[in-house]
């Protein structure tokens, strides 16, 4: 379990938050931020470590959400079981999309476009198919029992999403330290060179996409249990595709804690923008997100974590840096 200590420290510290007497509004903010962080953690496995920038992670989020909701509402499946199947559904969509795109050798702009197109096809299909409730959406019945995976208190939901985030942190850390993770980074840095050295790039990217899809789908499953409602725009809309890629890039792309830090900062900024204007400013929070994205790429391409590390580095070794220029 070497290398997992930081994960345990951060998660334990965050688990104590509900005991500090914070308001329900704050707790609600944290729950949503953690849910976005989870979606971003999924994106980070494929985009951050594998270098495959997906613009359509809504395909996974939405599939997780719809599988969880539809199985419960239409087929009376237990919520816990439906939740698990939702995650499996995301992994399956990842396998299908990844299998098709990576085998065709799509990279860069092409990969971004084709993932976007898959999410759009799913969105339009969900907006007309009867099984998803078409335009009306699907409402999950309120049933505040642990067996139905619904809780009366915000704190319980908070611990639930924190557990999921913690699991994703551990998975990410294990990937980072594994042979698979090294291959994945090799593919990101130079796919042709990695292939020449005997790495099966297609299989590696496909595996990353399956894991990525499963993690982001878990965020969608949680969305349904928390809000008890889903429709095609919420499930497969571009908002979640954008937030899933925004959080790791702002926080630190290809780092374990990047998506978590990014989600808290980004959501905090959005909330701040809405508070300043009295909540009567549609779109302003997204303007702030967009500016944050452009500024981070322009001034700190390795995200906040990279920027902090560089800053600390510079403070500790000013003399050495003066010799070599900047890092």
């Amino acid at each position, binding site marked *: 379990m070497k290398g997992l200590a930081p994960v345990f420290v951060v998660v334990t510290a965050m688990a104590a938050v509900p005991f500090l007497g914070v308001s329900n509004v704050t707790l609600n903010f944290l729950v949503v931020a953690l849910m976005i962080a989870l979606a971003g953690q999924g994106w980070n496995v494929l985009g951050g470590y594998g*270098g495959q*920038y997906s*613009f359509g992670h809504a395909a996974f989020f939405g599939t997780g959400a719809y599988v969880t909701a539809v199985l419960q509402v239409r087929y009376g499946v237990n919520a816990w079981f439906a939740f698990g199947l939702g995650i499996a559904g995301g992994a399956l969509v990842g396998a299908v999309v990844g299998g*098709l*795109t990576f085998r*065709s*050798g*799509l990279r*860069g*702009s*092409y990969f*971004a*476009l*084709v993932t*976007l*197109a*898959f999410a*759009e*096809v799913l969105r*339009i*299909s969900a*907006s*007309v198919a009867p099984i998803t409730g078409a335009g009306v959406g699907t409402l999950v019945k309120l049933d505040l029992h642990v067996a139905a995976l619904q809780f009366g208190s915000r704190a319980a939901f908070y611990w639930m999403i924190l557990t999921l985030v913690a699991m994703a942190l551990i998975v990410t850390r294990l990937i980072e330290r594994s042979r698979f993770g090294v291959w994945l980074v090799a593919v990101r840095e130079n796919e042709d060179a990695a292939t020449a050295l005997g790495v099966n790039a297609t299989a590696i990217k496909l595996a990353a996409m399956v894991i990525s899809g499963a993690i982001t789908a878990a965020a969608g499953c949680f969305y349904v249990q928390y809000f008890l409602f889903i429709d095609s725009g919420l499930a497969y809309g571009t908002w979640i595709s*954008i937030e899933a*890629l925004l959080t790791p*890039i702002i926080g630190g792309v290809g780092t374990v804690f990047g998506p978590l830090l990014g989600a808290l900062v980004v959501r905090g900024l959005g909330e701040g923008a809405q508070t300043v204007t009295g909540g009567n*400013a*549609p*779109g*302003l929070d*997204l*303007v702030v*997100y*967009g*500016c944050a*994205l*452009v500024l981070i*790429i*322009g001034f700190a*391409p390795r995200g906040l974590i990279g920027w902090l590390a560089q800053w600390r580095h510079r403070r500790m070794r000013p003399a050495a840096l003066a010799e070599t220029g900047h890092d």
Partner: protein
Amino acid sequence: MLSPSILIAAIVNGLLIGAVYALVALGLTLIYGVLHIINFAHGALLTAAMFAAFFGYRMLGIDPYLAVFLLAPAFFAIGYALQRFIIGPASHGDDRNMLLVTLGLAVIIENALLFAFRADTRTIDLPYAFGGLDLGFAFVPWPRLIGFGAVFVVALALWLIMSATDTGRAIRAVAKEKLGAELAGIDVAHIYAVTFGLGSACVAIAASLLIPSYYVNPTAGNAFVLVAFTIVVLGGMGSVPGALIGGLLIGVVENLCSLLFGESLGQIGIFVLFIVVLLVRPSGLFGARA
């Protein structure tokens, strides 16, 4: 079953709307051909130009078709500045960063418009917009007909710029071999920005042609750009004739699909076509290289 006259009318209408799609796609494919990235801000720029054309008519009484001569240079300047001062410097020469910066710009522009004008849908009524040409088998409204003609004028103008001017030659040189062009003394950052400006000017012209017969709201441009992505892929990324033929083809396919299967399935038809072309023949139907 459907009578031939309905089918012909659908095809004619598809060709007419396809011409405007082609114009949006022309800007996108031009930028891709030189910068090798998909400009995700294309749709937001289209929406912004539509708002500009709308308010130009409402506030100042400028006819949208005359506004072209103001909007095209204005959006050339905006596009030039965006690439020169934001996208270029912020992306540090990395393609993935470039994609993300254009996506960030799209989010900013679209939501700034939402913030300023709310989600209301606006239309303008031109006195002559409802008239048209009766071909006997199909009725062609004037705005569509003017749009159709204008697209070919723009394509011709672009072709002249590309083949007969020094800037055009420099653009083609950078598109073919960036390093070589740089060594030959071409200012690549400037050429990138000029290309982005030309692409944005295409979008401004498309907006002026659309506004008499279409509506505008903060997401109006997105519908066209998703279609334009499809056209660019279909026609071969970076291919100008491909964008023209692809645009007309997609216009017809969409109209026929909507007629046969209903509106939303018509849209799915386009995306499925898009995914299949990407997977099977990523270089496009007319493109030479991947």
